[in-house]
């Protein structure tokens, strides 16, 4: 049984990490090593010229090249990563804050037609987001929001809000009303009680919600591509935009950039891992 469990875990881990490992290996290759006919994945110091070899000489040139502006782009990788960070962070913070407040309202106040409202909120997720790419594009043109960070922050916030409201409502419903009522009795206003009692209790939920919102904003490609010509291009759109440029795809740089792009998400997830585990099982276990 133990053996079986471990073998399943090992196989799964390999499958899950292989693409990442391959990306890491690619990031330290030279460009010709990435496009050779024979897979070259064994790093070595020996610079053989055999075309059939499976070895390559590691180099960090690709990381240094990230600072250069590649042909087909207007800025270097770091400026696009900055876009991603700013847009991802702002939209995540906005979705979680608005979602928490909204969920609190639905959870605690007798909102007329609350069930219908909640269903409406959820229904915005039913259609694939790209189905509205044209209307959004036209709307954004009119408002002058194309190619701006604000535009993408607004869009991602709105898209993630439904998820945020539903997740947070689940968490807040689980916090006994008596907690905040006791605070009100003790002399605190409803807002004070919300800040001092509900928010600390809902932290787990907020962390879980933030992870989901960040991942979805971070990885979004379709809108980032369509609504942009230059100003607010995020990393996924940048890499995709490099296709077909005159110098060909700079695979080592793409791999190096991809690694750096994945790193913040991994770090963030590890940071809130404790909350995440509790949050995933939330509501499934009743005391």
């Amino acid at each position, binding site marked *: 049984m133990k053996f079986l469990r471990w073998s399943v875990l090992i196989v799964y881990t390999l499958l899950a990490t292989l693409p990442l490992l391959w990306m890491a290996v690619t990031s330290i290759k030279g460009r010709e090593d990435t496009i050779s006919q024979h897979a070259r994945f064994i790093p070595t110091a020996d610079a053989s010229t055999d075309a059939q070899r499976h070895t390559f000489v590691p180099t960090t040139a690709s990381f240094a090249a990230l600072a250069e502006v590649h042909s087909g782009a207007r800025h270097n990788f770091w400026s696009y990563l900055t876009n991603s960070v700013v847009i991802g962070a702002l939209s995540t913070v906005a979705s979680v804050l608005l979602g928490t407040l909204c969920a609190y309202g639905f959870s605690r106040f007798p909102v007329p037609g609350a069930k219908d409202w909640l269903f409406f909120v959820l229904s915005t997720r039913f259609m694939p987001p790209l189905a509205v790419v044209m209307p959004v594009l036209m709307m954004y043109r009119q408002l002058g929001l194309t190619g701006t960070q604000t535009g993408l922050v607004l869009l991602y916030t709105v898209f993630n809000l439904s998820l945020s409201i539903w997740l947070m409502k689940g968490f807040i419903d689980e916090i006994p009303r008596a907690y905040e009522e006791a605070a*009100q*009795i*003790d*002399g605190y206003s409803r807002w004070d009680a919300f800040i001092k009692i509900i928010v600390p209790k809902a932290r787990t939920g907020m962390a879980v919600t933030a992870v989901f919102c960040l991942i979805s904003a971070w990885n979004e490609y379709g809108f980032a591509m369509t609504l942009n010509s230059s100003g607010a291009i995020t990393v996924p759109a940048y890499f995709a935009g490099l296709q077909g440029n005159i110098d060909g795809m700079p695979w080592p740089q793409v791999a190096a950039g991809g690694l750096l792009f994945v790193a913040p998400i991994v770090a963030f997830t590890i940071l809130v891992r404790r909350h995440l585990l509790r949050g995933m099982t939330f509501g499934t276990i009743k005391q």
Partner: protein
Amino acid sequence: MSTPFLELRGVTRRFGNTVALDRVNLELGDGELLVVLGPTGAGKTTLLRTIAGLEPIEAGTILMQGQDLSKLSVAQRDVALVFQNFSLYPDWSVRRNLEFPLRAPGRALGAEEIRERVAHSASLLGIEALLDRPARLLSGGEMQRVAIGRAIVRRPRLYLMDEPLTNLDAKLRETLRVELAVLARSLRVPMIYVTHDQGEALSMADRIAVLVAGKLQQVGAPREVYSRPISPLVARQLGQPEINFFTVRPHAGFLCTEDGTRLCASAKAESEQSLVGVRPEHIEVRTVAGAAGSDAQRTAVIELVENSGPHQILVTRWAGQRVHALADRSREFHVGDRVELRIEERNCVSWEAEPRAPGASLRAT
């Protein structure tokens, strides 16, 4: 009682189609301990919550020291409410829980004063040793002590207690009940104490208010409510074992039950049927000496003998119904024994208007 400390006039609260509070009128004197007694679902908790401001009211007014509370927020009312559950924040230390109300905006107390008040309340309740423990590690009794501490540390205008002892085991309940009653009187702050436990009600209250199905049935001193309940419904709320009901009609110098049994001698003129209640302790139990000399009219058969410590409860069959009587512990009774039951008319509570005992449906409200 010149002007009442707290006055409720026609307070009404509905939840959908159910009326939780139905035109409740109630007065509370300064420093008085009023116990609201009623079965589960009677509206007791709702009553406290409306006074605290956690629940809106549809009609009526609540005045505290002459001031209309409707315009005041929960915080502004300055009342303390001790909940049955969840009154503490589990992750905080006892000290932090006690300090929390003192740190509320608008109270603006200095650190020194906060420390002093916490220490004082803690010593009143004997929880000094627990101050630095997280609340979730406390036992039930300790938790409820701290919850009460959190209420008294503030020195509020009014205490509201929502079955604070219900979740504790019987022994602890009795200890805390005594402590709480003593504390309430020493604090001289009025208190409304809600319970479904008639023992708590009788032992603690200055006055008892009986609340059933959202309606305030009777308010009075424990002795008065116990011995002169205004309705069968109220009579049923107090007394262990429950009061006995008989449907009787005065006939030929006796109160006779429906099957013709003579309940007791009576000088009443012949009239319609009415309902009388007789407390088990007011039924005299005599051993039947022998077949001769015993009054067949008064002979009951014992169906069950329950030992309840100081006395024994005899469940008997008499006059075609089940009758509870109390007997001295020194005497010996067995199931199947025949005994003679004697009742005096002065011990019968009579409700002319109601010829039938309150049914199970009323009890279940």
